């Protein structure tokens, strides 16, 4: 569809139907991944949407691992135990490990002992994508920092660049170590980097991320940070929240209520 024609359609107020997305929607059988077009009123505009997450550490139960188990199962994350070859997308860290630069002197002992969920922050200014020499890791139009497993050369620059330890490398063949194969997401090969993808494969079907859905305490809130009236934005405005290592200027899209 030509640019002019698109402009015309937009101007004509047919925004909801315009754009390549709608064109693809006319032929759902040809789409590789069934797309629920009701999500998109227009062709994706970079920066218009910014997915974010708010984690209420007060609600998160100490020894519950529902979200971790669900995410790692859905995404075929291999289990190498706690070894150096470990691969993980979402996991629990001690409060001081997650927030090493937050003041912790004379901190409330209950808070200090809290286990905090840690995952990729889908930074608005991601240092990992800057370091990548092949654009294998990149920021999508909706703020999600994604990885092309077929392009990654396994140089692990992104791992050195990420100040949050969010990335894992496939030191060994992951496939034999997947406990129960899931059809929701492809498996990876040896020698590439992976991490949380904010469940982009689910968002495209208008479903919430697996971890958010699985949390029995509803401690995880997901939404568009660029939409002022979204639930997440309202909660951010109403609560005292934290981002990890805000001094680094990475602008994490994952927030925490302590």
């Amino acid at each position: 569809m030509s640019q002019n024609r698109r402009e015309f359609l937009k101007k004509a107020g047919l925004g909801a139907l315009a754009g390549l997305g709608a064109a693809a929607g006319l032929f759902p059988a040809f789409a590789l991944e069934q797309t629920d077009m009701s999500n998109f009123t227009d062709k994706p505009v970079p920066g218009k949407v910014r997915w974010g997450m708010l984690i209420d550490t007060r609600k998160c139960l100490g020894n519950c691992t529902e979200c971790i188990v669900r995410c790692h199962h859905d995404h075929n994350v291999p289990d190498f135990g706690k070894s150096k070859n470990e691969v993980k997308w979402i996991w629990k860290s001690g409060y001081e490990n997650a927030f090493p630069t937050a003041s912790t002197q004379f901190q409330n002992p209950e808070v200090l002992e809290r286990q905090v969920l840690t995952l990729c922050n889908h930074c608005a200014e991601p240092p990992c994508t800057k370091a990548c020499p092949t654009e294998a890791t990149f920021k999508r139009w909706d703020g999600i920092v994604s990885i092309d497993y077929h392009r990654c050369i396994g140089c692990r620059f992104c791992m050195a660049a990420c100040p949050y330890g969010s990335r894992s490398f496939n030191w060994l063949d992951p496939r034999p170590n997947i406990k129960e194969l899931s059809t929701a997401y492809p498996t990876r090969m040896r020698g590439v980097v992976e991490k949380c993808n904010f469940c982009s494969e689910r968002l495209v079907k208008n479903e919430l991320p697996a971890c958010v859905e699985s949390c029995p305490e509803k401690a995880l809130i997901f939404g568009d940070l660029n939409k002022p009236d979204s639930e997440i934005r309202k909660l951010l405005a109403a609560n005292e929240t934290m981002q990890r290592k805000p001094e680094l200027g990475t602008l994490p899209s994952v927030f925490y209520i302590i």
Partner: protein
Amino acid sequence: MIEKALKGGRGYWAWVAFLLVVIGIGVTAYARQMTIGLGVTGMGRDISWGVYIAQFTFLVGVAASAVMLVLPYYLHNQKAFSKIVIVGEFLAVSAALMCMLFILADMGRPDRVLNVLLYPSPHSMVFWDVMVLNGYLFLNLISGWAVLGAERKGVAPAPWVKALIYLSIPWAFSIHTVTAFLFAGLPGRHLWLTAVLAPRFLASAFAAGTAILILITFILKKVAKFDAGPEARLKLSVLASYAGLANLFFLGTEFFTAFYSNIPAHMHSLQYLFFGLEGHAPLVPWMWFSLITGIISVGVLLSPPLRRKNGALIAACIGLVVSIWIDKGMGLVFGGFVPTPLEAIVDYMPTATEISVTLGIWAIGLLVLTMLLKTAIAVKTQE
């Protein structure tokens, strides 16, 4: 000309055979790494770079140090270096080659290495590093080879060769600066996040690389009866001493900034390396050995009567190389990962496979250097 590398005595062939054996071991180890994965190394989720990247970093410095001969000879007409400029250039070629092999060995998908060129990403320092390293290798190989070829025919080298040589001078600085930028631009890795990293890289490179050049002249004198002459060595030793001094000075400024400011994140890596952190101190003896050896070696090189004595000069050069190799080829890279972004202290220990691959790559570099130098000396001595 290269056929000249195929003529040699018993000792020469024994050396070549030895290198081939080490290469064989390295290739076998690499085959194992390729079948099983990088999991066979000591690297892991927390310490995600190890000896490969550390050797790469050290060797970029060695490659850059050719400029310590090229610059005085071509820009300042230092005739003392006329016999050994070619040694510097060929050292640069073999060091740059080793750098690339170390990068390849470190990659999870070496089969996709061309992606760096297919999807050029100027925002990534790796892209620039690949560009400048390759460029540097070819600049030195072509200019060195052309000068040698002209010398064999007894004619002056073509004018374009001079242009390449002049170009190689700023290029040498660029390769090590870009290599420092690989590290110095990463947020949250405080040992690396310092503006003094690039100057320090250059200083340590010019110290260690020049010391290696001095040692090579001694080796060539012994095994090939090719003497660069005491004057050349003396001049080099002065260069090495000042570069070594600058390196120690930069290290001192790192200590001052970290410990005087008393900012925990800035102190942690240095504490881990030199004093141990929360009971983890695997590198402490190494780092102190490196520091003390470095200070003594620079002291010897700075003293005119001492550096004139061959024995002291050799010992000081070995000391300086070992000191910087430990500092840059181990401490800097491993230490940068500790503590991890999640404040864990993880120790790294290279595996036998990893060490075999490393030695194999060194052997490839030494073999290339041996053959290039053999050719050069054959031409120069008109064998």
